[in-house]
């Protein structure tokens, strides 16, 4: 009888949430070293791209990039370049410059110093090939909608280079896993008739977004969507729940914002990234994208 494969699982507070990493099939000392290395990578990405921390590269850009080009590290360059590519592919449905609207809602802090231009968008960000960033007008860049997924991917790729049999990496609703069998991921969406919505995935990333904000975290009296439709500057609908499955978590994370804003119309963007989405509007689940299954079981 084969020995059961060794499973090491640890959790640390990072990225403003709890990050959980599970690695199977490696000797425990090696697995622990790799998990520590993966946590360190995630911590580094957080330090570089935190909107809250004054010393982060992101904060430096927000203070200075509208006045002169700001040099950035390869990691920040990679995330920003993914963000701008997604913004272009989605025609602005993903826009990393909606921070002022989120600050208005109390979801992000108000930055001291320069006030952002009211008409600023992703198009005002210029990323040069020599790794500097310039803003065409004052704006607040926030990579929160994509950097968590990127952090998951970086940590995942690092772990995968050591060839464990399974990897499970989760950072507050963003998840990437690999292994020989499909795994069930339960969705924190409303359930019906005693049934829990779930996706079964294999070697993929999943990110989910809902709009039912906890009142104790935002102090708001009414449910307000934490998502902004960049086209209008208004909140997205509050009864929508979106799960995106994609090969990489960077894309799954960012694409939840696109589907949240555009719904069915987001299909071409999902297809471009080999992604698919399951969307709940009110009580009806729909699948979106050419890669998605066309019929969903027992829609209510």
């Amino acid at each position: 009888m084969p020995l059961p494969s060794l499973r090491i699982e640890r959790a640390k507070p990072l990225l403003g949430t709890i990050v959980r990493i599970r690695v199977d099939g490696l000797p425990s000392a090696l697995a622990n070293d790799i998990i520590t290395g993966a946590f360190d990578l995630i911590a580094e990405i957080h330090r570089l791209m935190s909107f809250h921390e004054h010393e982060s590269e992101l904060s430096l850009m927000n203070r200075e990039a509208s006045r002169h080009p700001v040099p950035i590290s390869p990691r920040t360059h990679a995330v920003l370049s993914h963000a701008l590519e997604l913004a272009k592919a989605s025609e602005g449905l993903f826009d990393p410059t909606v921070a002022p609207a989120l600050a208005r809602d109390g979801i992000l802090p108000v930055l001291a110093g320069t006030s952002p231009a009211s008409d600023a968008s992703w198009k005002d960000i210029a990323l040069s090939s020599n790794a500097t960033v310039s803003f065409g007008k004052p704006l607040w860049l926030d990579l929160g909608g994509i950097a968590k997924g990127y952090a998951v991917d970086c940590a995942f790729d690092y772990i995968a280079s050591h060839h464990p049999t399974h990897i499970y990496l989760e950072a507050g609703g963003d998840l990437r896993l690999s292994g020989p069998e499909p795994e069930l991921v339960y969705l924190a969406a409303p359930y019906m008739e005693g049934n829990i919505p779930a996706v079964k995935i294999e070697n993929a990333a999943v990110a989910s977004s809902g709009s039912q904000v906890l009142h104790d975290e935002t102090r708001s009296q009414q449910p307000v969507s934490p998502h902004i439709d960049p086209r209008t500057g208004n909140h997205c609908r509050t009864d929508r729940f979106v799960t995106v499955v994609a090969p990489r978590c960077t894309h799954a994370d960012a694409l939840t914002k696109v589907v949240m804003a555009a719904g069915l119309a987001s299909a071409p963007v999902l297809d471009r990234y080999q992604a698919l989405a399951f969307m709940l509007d009110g009580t009806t689940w729909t699948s979106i994208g050419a890669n998605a299954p066309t019929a969903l079981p027992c829609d209510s």
Partner: protein
Amino acid sequence: MKAQFLWVPAVAIVAVATPAYAKVYLSVEQAQQLMFPGATFTQQPLTLTGDQVHAIQKASNTEVLNPQLQLWKVSTGGWFIVDQVVGKHEFIPLAVGLDDSGAVKSIEILEYREAFGDGVRNPQWLAQFYGKRNGATLTLTKDIQNISGATLSSKHITDGVRRLLATYAIAIAAH
């Protein structure tokens, strides 16, 4: 990449769930060895006085729930503390390693008893919702805690670590 959407009957989930579910990640000894490899650990009995509790609460702006510390002196220098913070619903036990100067060296969550992240749930956690009326909405927090925000649990961990740093300054450094 493969993906399939499905409904899992809650009753099937409950069948495999333990009611008092807690996921144990690390024992105290495992956390000690991860943070300070090869070191030996001497537990130091230390109960905070009323004045110290007051000073710590004032310095950290967080409440001291237990004046009795679980504290170890590390043979290679530094301190190891086991503590717990209030999560969304329950306590989260965690270990904090401090270096010689009292700076945080490492934090490990030892056990987790509640929903992780939020887009994803484990079946055991879901079991507690079984039997509730249809259409009940599970709460979500993912959306506001991206790289810059924080979930309630992670905020409470940050508060807890601030309290332990105040505890170090007020009660441990001179110990």
